[in-house]
Structure formats: C-alpha cells, structure tokens
C-alpha cells in the first residue's frame, strides 16, 4: 500500500505543472436540488435550484443533466460556474415529465490552454420528475397589473362622479377651440377643409383618437355645407374614416352633401402619399388643414406645404419626435394628451369628461410618486425604481 502511495506521489511530483490535473478522488456534490415549472410564464421552461458544496476546488463547475422519457438516459444539458445555484431549461416540452441531475465537474487545462479533461463526480444528485406548463399570471408584471387596476378604478370612479351630474372643469384647449374657426373661415372663402388622419392604421391609438376628431370636424362641415377632403395612406383607416364621415353627414341631416370621394385612398407608400397630398394642397389650396394623428418624416413636408398655401393649420400628435415641426409650422398644435382629450372636449359628454378627470388624478398620483421617489433616493433611504420597473 505504501509502495503504491509512494509511486503515485512520485508520478504527481514528476508531472509538468500544467499537465492535466488528476481528478480529486471525490468531488463534493451539490445539495438540495429542486426542479419546478417556471412560474408566471407561457410554459416551455423548468427552473432548477441547488446549493453548491461548501468547498469546491478552483475551476469547478456544476454540470446539469436531464433524463427524458421514454429512454430516461442522462444527457448533459449545460454547465454553469460554481456559485450560480440556478439554471433555467427552456428546451422542454409542456406536459413531459423530466428528471434533472446536477453534479460537480472539474475542467483541467493543459499547457496549450485547451480544456482536455473534464473530471466529474460519477453520480448526479437527482430531482423529482417535473413537467412544465403555462401559468395563469405573469408574476413579473404584478406592479403593472396593480397600477392598471388602480387606474381603471380611478377612471371608473371619475366617470361615476360625472354621471352623477357634478360639473367637471376642463381647461381651455386653443387648438380644439380653433376647429370651428378654421371650418368657418373655409366656409367664408368657399374653399375645402382637408383632414389627414396620420399615416398609421387603426391599431394605433392616436389614429383612433384622430378618427374620433374627424367625426366632429365632419359634423361641422356638414352643418356649414363646406367641402371636406380626407386623403388616406392606410387602407383600414380609410375604411373607418369613410364610415365616420358618412355617419356624421347622416347625423347632421345632410346625407345629400356626402360624396364617396370626400374620403379617398391615395397610396400605401409614405413619400408617394406625401407627394400626392402636398400637390393637392398646392393645387386646390384648402382653407383649413388638419394634420391630426401619427406622422413620421412627412410631418414637416406636409405642414410646410400647407403653411405656404396660407391655410389655417391645426395639428395634433402624441409622439414628441414630430411635435416641434408642427409647433413651428402650424397655427395650433394639440400636444400629447390633448389629442386624446379632444373627443371629450368637443362633445362635452359627461362620461368622457369624467375619464379625462380620472386621467388627471392618475397623473397627479404619478407626479407625487416621482417626487417621493426623488426625495427617498436623494436621502439614501429607498430606491423605488425596482418596484416601478416593468418587464
């Protein structure tokens, strides 16, 4: 026995320094392996957790293995550095029961720097069978869910208050007050009103808001008998806008004034649309131009062309990137939330006004949270940002 020990010791000491290390006779095993379905996901993921052994040699890694029915043979899945303690397997099929194993492995590096030997404990620590499934709630969105519920409660409460007959103050929005003025001017000079509902489709909320404003503009043009021109880039917006304008003329008792070509389709291409509408502005010189909705690079081209024709221009956009162009070139601009408040402002329906009040309360709460957050983080008490971050 001693002779064998001496022989082994002599071999070890005789070996070069960066030769493959002889694996220790018994690497310590990870403990407390738990495998469970990843909570709050759409399925297809199993999460593993374990405790690393107290003392691991340098270069030790944890090897994750998986046994899948019907063969149930251990297949290496991945290796993670010691100290990680967790692994998520995203390559599973929902409903299939897998077994997981973890074991310690030790990579040995030869003189060239390549990993040549991976020694490992022979038998892994094995988990109970586990299968993944889809879940009923996304836990990481709890904060967003709670905020949404609170927002809904505030809005519904405000609508209820408005329904009870309480007077709701809404500040003056010059851009919306100017709508009638612009249409009135067009009527006086006998020219048409042009309304461009942006270049996005009806899945964009700004387009929905714009089409609602178009309904009010169309009612006014029907009332005054002014010609209306609504060029469209998106086919779905075109279909919606046509119905809205037709309904507005019908509601005002002037279906005879409605013509199909009032709401027209131009093209799906952004700059071809811009060229066509700019040319129409230059040729037909509308007296009032509404640029309300979601615009991109064409915003300035359209607004500047409209400006050069001398038309009253009212623009509206919630996205701040194009707003400066509208502010610079248009007579009135609906900035940000004013676009969404337009429908309530113009119709003065208590229910809609109530939702605007609720929106303002929610904004007040957000401002309060922002101020409290700034104070708390400045005096090093609490950082609220992890609670407010959404995923």
């Amino acid at each position, binding site marked *: 026995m001693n002779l064998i020990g001496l022989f082994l010791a002599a071999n070890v000491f005789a070996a070069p320094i960066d030769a493959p290390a002889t694996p220790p006779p018994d690497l310590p095993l990870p403990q407390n392996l738990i495998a469970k379905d990843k909570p*709050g996901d*759409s*399925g297809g993921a199993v999460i593993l957790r374990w405790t690393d052994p107290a003392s691991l040699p340098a270069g030790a890694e944890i090897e994750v293995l998986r046994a899948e029915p019907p063969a149930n043979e251990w297949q290496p899945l991945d290796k993670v550095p010691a100290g990680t303690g967790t692994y998520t397997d995203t390559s599973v099929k929902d409903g299939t029961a897998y077994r997981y194993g973890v074991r310690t492995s030790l990579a040995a590096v030869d003189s060239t720097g390549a990993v040549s030997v991976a020694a490992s404990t022979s038998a892994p620590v094995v988990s109970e069978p586990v299968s993944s499934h*889809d*879940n*009923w709630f*996304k836990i990481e*969105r709890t904060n*967003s*869910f709670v905020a*949404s519920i609170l*927002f*809904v409660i505030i809005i519904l409460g405000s*609508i209820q208050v408005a329904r009870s007959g309480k007077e709701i103050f809404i500040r003056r929005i010059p851009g919306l007050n100017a709508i009638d003025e612009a249409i009135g001017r067009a009527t006086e000079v006998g020219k048409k009103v042009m309304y461009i509902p942006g270049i996005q489709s*009806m*899945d964009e*909320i700004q387009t*929905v808001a714009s*089409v*609602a*404003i178009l*309904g*009010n503009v169309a009612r006014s043009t029907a009332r005054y008998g002014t010609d209306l021109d609504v060029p*469209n880039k*998106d*086919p*779905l917006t*075109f*279909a*919606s806008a046509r*119905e*809205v304008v037709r*309904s507005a003329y019908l509601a005002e008792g002037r279906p005879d004034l409605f013509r199909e*070509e009032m709401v*027209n389709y131009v093209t*799906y291409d952004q*700059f*071809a649309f811009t*060229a066509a509408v700019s040319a129409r502005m230059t040729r*037909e010189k509308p007296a009032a131009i509404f640029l309300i909705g979601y615009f991109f690079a064409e915003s*300035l*081209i359209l607004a*500047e062309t409209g400006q050069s024709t001398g038309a009253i221009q009212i623009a509206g956009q*919630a996205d*701040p990137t194009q707003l400066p*162009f509208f502010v610079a070139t248009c007579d009135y601009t609906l900035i*940000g*939330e004013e*676009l*969404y*408040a337009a*429908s309530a402002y113009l*119709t003065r329906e208590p229910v*809609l006004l109530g*939702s*605007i009040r*609720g*929106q303002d309360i*929610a*904004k007040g709460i957000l401002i309060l949270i922002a101020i409290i957050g700034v104070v708390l983080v400045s005096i090093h008490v609490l950082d609220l940002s992890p609670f407010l971050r959404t995923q």
Partner: protein
Amino acid sequence: MTFNLGPVVLVLLFAVVPIIGIVLGLNSPGLRSRIPIWVAVFAGLIPILAMYIPKGFLSGQTGMSQRMDDWLIILAGFALLLGIVNVLQNNFKKVARRDSGWFFSVVLLIGLFVTGGAGIYGAVTKIGIGFNPDGSPTPFKYLTDWFFQPLQSTIFALLAFFMASAAFRAFRARNVEATILLVAAGLVMVGRVPIIELLAVPFPSLHASAASASQAMGKLTEWIMDVPNGAAQSGIIIGAALGAASMALRVILGIERGYLGLGKGE
C-alpha cells in the same frame, strides 16, 4: 389531437356573436349599432389579458392575441383592395369629367397599371419581382429601382429645405418664449458642429482656446438636450401615455364611440 381553445373563442367572439347581433338587429337598429362596439371591446380586451395571463391559448405563439395580429394583416389586405378600387374610381371620374389636374390622374393610372402589370407578370411567369434567372432585373424590379426609389428619395430630400424654412420661422424672436427657443437652438447648433475651431483656423494662437471652448459648448449642448429638453419630453410622454391608456379604456368600455361614427346615445 389536443383541443385548441383560442381559435374557438375567437370565432365565437368575432364571427358568431356579430352574426347573431346582425340577425337580431334587423328589427332593432339600436342593437345593430352595438355590434361594432362589442367587437371593439373584445379586440381591446384580448391583448390586455394576454399581457398578464401567460396561458398558451391566450398569449402563446398560436394564442388568441397572436392570431388577432395575423387577422389584422388579412383584414388590411382586403381593405387595401378597397383602397385600390377607390383610387381607380376617383381617378377615372376625374379624367372623365376633365376636372382640374385630370392629367395627373392619367399619369397615376398609367403608373398603377404598368407597375401592377409588371408585378402580375412576375407572378404568372413565376419569375417573381426580384431578378431573372440570368441575374437581370425583372420589369417590376426595374421600375422600383429606377423610377420609384429615386422619386421617394427626391421627396425625402425636400425635408432639408423645409427644415430650414421652418427653423427660420420658428426662431424669430417675437416674444420671450421664442427668444429662449432661439438662444437654446443657437447654442445646440454651435455645440453640435466644430464651428468655433473652424473660425479659429486662421489664428494659430487661438487653437487651444477654441478647442476647449468647443468642448465646453458640447457639454452645454448635452445638458440642454438631456435636462430641460429631456424633462419636457418626459412630461409629454407621461401625459400622452396616460391619455392613450384612458382612451383605450374608453374604447374597451364602449364609452368612446366617435371612431365608429356613433355619437351620444347611438
């Protein structure tokens, strides 16, 4: 075979319920006008539920939310056909009536038929709309590369000139606000280009001072963009986000009906 709940619910909500509504609404205009509201309510609720409920039938790869996005594309395809018909009708009418600018309608119709014809030719001959087997461009590709794209670029290039004229109008110091805007814009423009160094080129003794002044202007520009400009933009974005959420809620609750052409009580 596993039962897939998502498509069944979608067909129920967007086909069966509207059809029943239309049939029942034949004698009740009030009920008929509620059908689009219900469709909007369902269409609005499904993506919101999918945000929080990760069940496969709702938010999975083939879940209801994803399928609704696919349906939107199909719907847009049919709406595009409607649009093309509208373009043809309007422009043929213009030409027939010799309205002002009728000649432009002729150009448009020629462009529509030639480009559309080239696309159909590519589909019929199975060449496609890219390149021929010998590497030469197909008629459609030729039209796109040599007519359409240069025209697009021309319109986009106009932006530079419009930007200059808009800036000239915006930066006139008519009142206090416009003067602040003018000063801020001037500082940002000077900070974004090495104008100070350029001015100092003829004076070698000033090169070092010009470089440090240019750096200081760069920092001032960053501050203007990040702090006052960033704060104002954040304010607009927060307000707009709440406004959009409130608008979406009004649509989902069926309170906002203006986008359907329905007014109060309709």
